[in-house]
């Protein structure tokens, strides 16, 4: 349901910022993918070999149509928002990650969690899915110290290493046991993120062609939101680019 009640575009107040505006870049893709996933669609096949049957599935297209309608039909989302729109009362609902809480607290001490805003549980479409984010680790083929690198990766993804990683970066830990060790992760508001990530998180497509995939996906959403393109055409364009890139990495 589009949030029409709180939408007052004539006053510069909008219902929702569904996924970090309509810009380019990885962050943009990251927060937009759940739209597709929640509707039961996907970008690539599970083995990441093709987008056919996934990015052009009826489920995906339904999600994309819904996303586009927020901007173009119901007009509850703005193509351009002023800076700090949520904190200054220009947008009613925003979609963001746990890191945003500390940012708001330091920049807008007057805008209080639990008083001026609150955190809703993950909404539900066909499914409940949230993007699995943060950082990935890899050891390159050309590494001069593969053993040492492995020792590090092994440690930092282990129970103790993950604690240090969380303390230093404040990125949600990948291990539940690590999350249990920090009281603040078991209290409101962080417990919501920890619980839901452990239940519903899904990683982004795993393929060497990912740079092309992410570019195509963020452009696909921009095509629909900004330019109000026909969903079938925009999907066909994105499919073309993704398939081309997948072909290249197969060789």
């Amino acid at each position, binding site marked *: 349901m589009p949030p029409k009640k709180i939408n007052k575009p004539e006053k510069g107040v909008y219902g929702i910022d569904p996924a970090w505006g309509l810009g380019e870049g990885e962050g943009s893709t990251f927060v937009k993918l759940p739209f597709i996933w929640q509707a039961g669609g996907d970008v690539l096949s599970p083995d990441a070999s093709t987008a056919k049957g996934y990015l052009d599935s009826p489920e995906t297209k339904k999600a994309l149509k819904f996303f586009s309608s927020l901007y173009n039909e119901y007009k509850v989302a703005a193509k351009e928002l*002023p*800076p*700090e729109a949520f904190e200054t009362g220009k947008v009613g609902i925003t979609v963001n990650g746990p890191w945003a809480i500390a940012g708001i607290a330091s920049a807008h001490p007057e805008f209080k969690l639990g008083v001026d805003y609150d955190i809703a549980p993950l909404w539900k479409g066909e499914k409940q899915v949230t993007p699995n984010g943060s950082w990935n680790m890899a050891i390159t083929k050309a590494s001069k110290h593969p053993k040492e690198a492995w020792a590090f990766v092994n440690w930092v993804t282990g129970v103790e290493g993950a604690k240090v990683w969380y303390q230093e970066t404040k990125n949600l830990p990948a291990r539940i046991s690590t999350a249990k060790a920090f009281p603040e992760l078991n209290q409101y508001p962080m417990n919501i993120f920890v619980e839901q990530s452990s239940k519903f998180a899904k990683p982004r497509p795993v393929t060497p062609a990912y740079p092309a995939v992410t570019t195509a996906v963020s452009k696909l959403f921009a095509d629909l939101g900004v330019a109000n393109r026909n969903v079938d055409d925009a999907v066909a364009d994105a499919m073309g680019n993704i398939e081309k890139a997948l072909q290249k990495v197969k060789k």
Partner: protein
Amino acid sequence: MVPASRQWVLMFAIAAISVLPILWMAMGSLRPRQELFQYISLEWHLFVPVKWTLQNYAAIFVQTSKPLGLYIKNTLLVAVTVTALSLWFNSMAAFSFAKLQFRFRKIILPLFMSALVIPGEVTMVPTYLLVHQLGWVDSYTALIVPSVISVFSVFMLIQFFAEIPRELLEAGRIDGASWFGIYSRIAIPSSVPAMITLGLITFLGQWDSYLWPLVVINDETKQMLQVAIATFSNLQNTEWGQILAADTVCSVPIIILFLVLQKYYVQSIVSSGIKG
């Protein structure tokens, strides 16, 4: 042509368009954050802060996540090094092309000049690969070494050196000076204005450089000013007041440098463009 009064209106209008955004930037950097997006209609406070603050400046120099001071230091280091080396090597080459007689000069010079038409867009990728092979990625060597030689600078200096009479140089030779002595004691002092001009152009080019550092520098602590500023504005929680402060800090030295040396700068444009 146009009546005088209308001409004045036009002159002031263009001046306003040129300067107001810069003024708006400088004044915005002195506003507290609550005020930044407050004044949007025609009134005094569209440009003048209600409450003046240096908070934004304090933040950009203190914050460890965006150490602007470090980026300025990095950029100054690279820009000054490139400018110094560039003046030295380009002037030597230009002196040689303009004044010395050597075999193959007639072949080497046009070949050299032909590099003027080779666009950086085409060579950027292979140059990056070369720099990568040399192991220079993430080092200032990658920023400095490929930027020193400028065909344009050599071209301009040849024009200046050409005006020094050869007799003057030969006289120096006969008095026992080496060619390097003649270059450094006769040629260089006689072309100080050209050297200042080119130095300024080179320095500005380095201060402005964005794409090349973006490509070859990954280590954030080694990053250059322009890339850093661009990155600030792409962050999720963009602190616009601080960006305006960073923009102002980045512009003030250049504006001052320009105001002091504008005579030469303007002269360089004039002579490089029109002489030929």
